[in-house]
């Protein structure tokens, strides 16, 4: 049985629908990437599942954690799941920590909440967690405030805080977007290592395909509030099928091989208030037909195990098209 099962999850803000029925399964210990441009609904999916959206958001559908329904669940149910079963870390680590509270206190708060440790024992555990995520001289720095740490270190502390509840699933919402490249690699490395050690499942939300390949087993590509393609990392990288996924790969510069002009995806993400009829990607798609602009394709399981929502997908690549250029080993270790 899967750990999290999301079915037909829909979200609208003030009557504007931003999620159009998301279906997603996360297995125990599995790492799943969620890829797409800003505003496509990657974060909203998980904020909605955990009930962290503002009150004006209307959420429908189902998100079950170990069989327990989370959508519109009572506050107390959500509070036991949050942090303890599903932890979440965010994009901007420096502003995600309370600026007027010592980091140790914030860590101990989670430890006390989920593990029942108090006083000196909780403090020892907080120091252990800070050590674990690679904060140097944790025992002296535990009493510092967030502004006395760098962005990368704040993200490490966020990860430590997430680990405090020993969760079954960690949602990492663009955890490296606000950090510079070397720190990014360190944080990805840390996440991969922790997953190896704890065996927890992970959802990695990102628009960086390289980062996703470094830490995930499987990835779902989202566009305008829908999942448009879903496949194992290998399948997705070797043979992307949806024109949007193909476009994402073509926009990545290749380090080896001859120098080539990058192919951008023309146009912009549609305004959720005025979505085009038919496939939302059709106005930007080079292989769109008249049919594409009038009928919305559903997510359909293909013969090779790939889930795809496209009427005119790219052909299977005979030679791995992109698999050789973005190596998973580039990021991990």
């Amino acid at each position: 049985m899967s750990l999290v099962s999301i079915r037909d999850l829909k979200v609208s803000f003030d009557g504007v629908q931003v999620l159009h029925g998301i279906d997603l399964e996360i297995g125990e210990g599995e790492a799943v990437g969620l890829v797409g441009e800003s505003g496509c609904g990657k974060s909203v999916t998980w904020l909605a599942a955990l009930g962290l959206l503002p009150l004006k958001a209307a959420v429908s559908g189902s998100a079950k954690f170990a069989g327990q329904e989370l959508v519109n669940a009572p506050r107390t149910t959500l509070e036991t799941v949050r942090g303890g079963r599903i932890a979440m870390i965010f994009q901007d680590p420096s502003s995600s920590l309370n600026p007027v509270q010592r980091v140790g206190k914030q860590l101990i708060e989670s430890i006390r909440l989920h593990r029942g440790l108090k006083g000196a024992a909780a403090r020892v555990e907080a120091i252990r967690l800070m050590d674990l995520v690679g904060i140097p001289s944790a025992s002296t720095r535990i009493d510092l405030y967030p502004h006395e740490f760098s962005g990368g270190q704040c993200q490490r502390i966020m990860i430590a805080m997430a680990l405090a509840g020993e969760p079954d699933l960690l949602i990492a919402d663009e955890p490296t977007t606000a950090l510079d490249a070397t720190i990014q690699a360190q944080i990805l490395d840390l996440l991969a290592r922790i997953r190896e050690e704890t065996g927890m499942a992970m959802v990695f939300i990102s628009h960086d395909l390289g980062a996703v390949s470094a830490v995930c087993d499987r990835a779902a590509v989202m566009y305008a509030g829908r999942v448009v393609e879903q496949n194992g990392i290998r399948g997705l990288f070797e043979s992307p099928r949806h024109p949007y996924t193909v476009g994402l790969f073509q926009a990545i510069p290749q380090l080896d091989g001859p120098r080539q002009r990058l192919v951008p995806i023309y146009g912009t993400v549609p305004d959720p208030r005025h979505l085009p009829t038919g496939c939302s990607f059709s106005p930007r798609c080079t292989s769109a037909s008249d049919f594409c602009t009038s009928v919305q394709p559903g997510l359909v399981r293909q013969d090779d195990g790939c889930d795809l929502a496209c009427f005119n997908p790219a052909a299977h690549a005979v030679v791995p098209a992109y698999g050789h250029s973005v190596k998973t080993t580039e990021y991990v270790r």
Partner: protein
Amino acid sequence: MLNHILIRLVRAFLTLMLVMTFAFLVLRLSGDPAIILLGPDAPQDAINAFRERWGLNDPLWKQYLAYIAQVLTLDFGVSMRDQVPALELVMSRIPATLAITVPALILKVAIGIPAGVYAALHRQSIADRGVITLSIFGFTVPSFVLGLILVLIFAVTLGWLPSGGQDSWRHAILPIATLSVGGIGIMARFSRSAMIEVLGQPYIRTAMAKGLSWRDVVWKHALPNAAVPIVTLLGFMVGSLIAGAAVVESIFSWPGVGRLIVTSVANRDLAVVQSLLLVIACSMIVANFLVDLAYGLLDPRLRSKRAAH
């Protein structure tokens, strides 16, 4: 830290010098105390004697230097009208003023902050709209109008409370009410927007994602952060404890500092006005200093910035 305090002391001294200079010049340029105090029909030799007595015949720069020298020896002059030391006169009025401004401040804090926070936590609810409407009413109705309305209702029509004077605690009720209404409104609105701002911050989402109860999120994470801007406003209110009640004191004939300001300015009682302004400036400086200390306690980012100086 010592350095920091030293810099503040020097700055406070400069501020006081500026206030003294300004008060000195404006008072002397705006009317002749001899004519105002003795009346327009006073004989010329009486006016001359008065001017001689108070040194008003000296050139302005000489008067100014004499005044500064006098203040530096902590002599603040004598009231031209009452012939008593000016500072003593000012100080004797402070308790009466504090007797109405301190309770008013307590009401502003005790009603304004909870109302604003409650409204922020229940946005768009009837309570929120009620708080907004009442607070706009509170700070848009001028105190002289509000004071007169209250007198009309509670003193004239109902006869429950006295309309003026300072004989018992019952006399203080209407002045305190008049003083606090506007401040409660401002405090409520300010607390509401500070709280709404904080509730939208990423660290609040983090606190919720941790699994904290909403109560703990509000008490342990939102309120300590919202306290920083609220303390700024509180500082202004503390700063005006001494000087902020002139209108209300006049309406209710409350014998405090505010009324002394009005009468001594009207009489061009130079030493009294100058002492008043010095005392008021000092109270503002002290209030600012307290706000600064509070900032340091509430926000560690400011503390380390200060240590870097």
